[in-house]
């Protein structure tokens, strides 16, 4: 094969690997230089059902047993309530975030969480209750509210 043809063919075959060799470090170094997109507040992370972001707040010292102010159309019908993060996660049927909160400090005996088992059952999270809430049997739940926004029935 003439040397020129061979060289062109060799370059063509090697081109994707060369592009990768140059492009990968360039792209990744510029990507790493930018801070990762992150929820602004703990409540926003809970609202977005983003368990990784919510965990970052916990990791940075956010107390999972502190009430947060929350309002939306789906869970509170637009009314602002003070609610525990665990109740908020359960109200959104967000079992990942609820599991994370229970894993990293959320207490079942924290008074605002006393009806979390009841809310979870009302939200259809029976499997979650059985596998994650060891004290579930000790809770006496009021009759299911059947309300449009079950969370409101369990917050003061």
């Amino acid at each position, binding site marked *: *094969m003439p040397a020129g043809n*061979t060289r*062109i063919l060799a*370059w063509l*075959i090697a081109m*994707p690997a060369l592009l990768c*060799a140059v492009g990968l470090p360039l792209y990744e170094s510029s990507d790493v230089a930018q801070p990762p997109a992150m929820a602004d507040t703990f409540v926003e992370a809970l609202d977005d059902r983003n368990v990784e972001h919510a965990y970052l707040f916990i990791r940075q010292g956010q107390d999972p047993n502190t009430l947060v102010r929350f309002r939306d159309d789906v869970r509170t019908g637009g009314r602002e309530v003070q609610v525990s993060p665990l109740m908020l996660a359960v109200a959104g049927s967000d079992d990942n975030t609820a599991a994370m909160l229970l894993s990293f400090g959320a207490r079942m005996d924290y008074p605002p969480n006393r009806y979390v088992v009841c809310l979870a059952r009302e939200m259809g999270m029976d499997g979650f209750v059985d*596998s994650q809430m060891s004290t579930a049997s000790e809770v006496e739940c009021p009759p299911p509210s059947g309300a449009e926004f079950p969370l409101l029935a369990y917050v003061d």
Partner: protein
Amino acid sequence: MLPVRRSILGLMDRLMSFHRGSLWVGVVLVVIAPLSVALLLSMWRSPFPINEMISLLEDAESSTPGRFFDPTIRSWYRPLFHLTLWGFWNGSGSLLGGLHWFRYLEVGSVLVLLLLFVSYLRPRTGLQAAAALLAVAVMMGMPGFRDNLEIPVLMTLVGMPMALLVWMLLEREHRWWYTPLILALTMTAIGYKEQGLVIAPVVVGAWWMGSPGARRTTTAVVVLAVLAYLAMRFSTRGHWALFEQDVGFLFGELGEDEAAARFGERPWILYGYSALATIGNILFSEPSRGTFVITDHALSGETRPWEWISIVSSTLMTALIAWWGVAILRRDWSADAWSAESRLFVILVLALGASGALGFNYARDRLGGMAVPFYAAASYFAVLSVAERAGAASLKRRATVALVLVMLAGAWQLRAVGTLHDVRLRAASTHRTWITSPNWSRVTFAHRPRYLSIMQTMTPQGTDPARARRPTYPEWFLALIGGG
């Protein structure tokens, strides 16, 4: 003066030849370095998974080394894998120290495999270097490679460089120490996972075809050792379940009981299917885990670009290898002598068959791992052969070949990057499990204090967000490499 001059010229020639060889090897190593280093770093940073790893460690802690070699405890037999965990833990004096060494082994296996592979190909020209770059992408992009990067499932990953090293020794001039080394490599690979048995037909095949390093003694020793091993396994098997795990079948998966109920009378049908599925996965990237996922997506019109890239690039590469293999066999058949290339082709066929046979019980992508280095090496010679022949063809044909090869190289490079992305996705998924599972584990394993204690020790590595960090690729690129 003449003999002296001839010696000097000979020496210079050898030096130049070595320089040319090492130059292109160096070029290949430099070009593959960014992706390889990113892959190795990603593996290094990946957290160990929560449940499987802790169970393995719990078992390692409560066992004595002798128990790992008892073949009656489990249906699978991986004494060296369990011994490694136990040894690292006890040798380092701490659980985290042991896990550190485990990472070295995992990452080191990939690094050694890559270095051995480039060393085996040893490109000496620009075209050979280009073909070697494509072959490395083939190796890194294959499902059998990708699936074996899962932590802590390194059993086959350890065996893959051993298989390649055995083949490299068999292809070199024989030395007395090859026999004990090949035997040791074979038995070590088997000791990590029985997929290591693939090395046995490689040795027999190499001897039969007259590989320079394969002597009758070497072959006899390996065959006897493997037969003794198989005799031990079958004589101590007790009762093996018909199907050990879920079995992929056509467009779905059968649970163990369901598979036994449907195929209990004639299990060989499903065994044959799983064996062929393992081979099909190596050659065509389909089926995966015994299930025709991409075909199913194609039938429902939901095929994603990366799926097309996988199946088309694999099929095209397999066709190229088949074309090259048949041509090389014909050439050597008429010359009545095996060449290194025709031996490699036959060894690939043997490794494929053995991998399929060993994957009879259920198909998994990782079960094809031992055939990966041979497939990738064959792809090198096939691409080189096509490229070299193209030179003598017409301009139109040359252009067609060039277009096909560049597209093939591009597709496999995307798949190699996909492997990197897959490792990172898995790390992110493991991290997510670590931050969502501890409470469940505390409730479920309340009666296993050692489990909980190991989990407690491992929690910082599992919950560290830096280990789950991955670049945010644009959507169009994710569509090409797979993953979200």
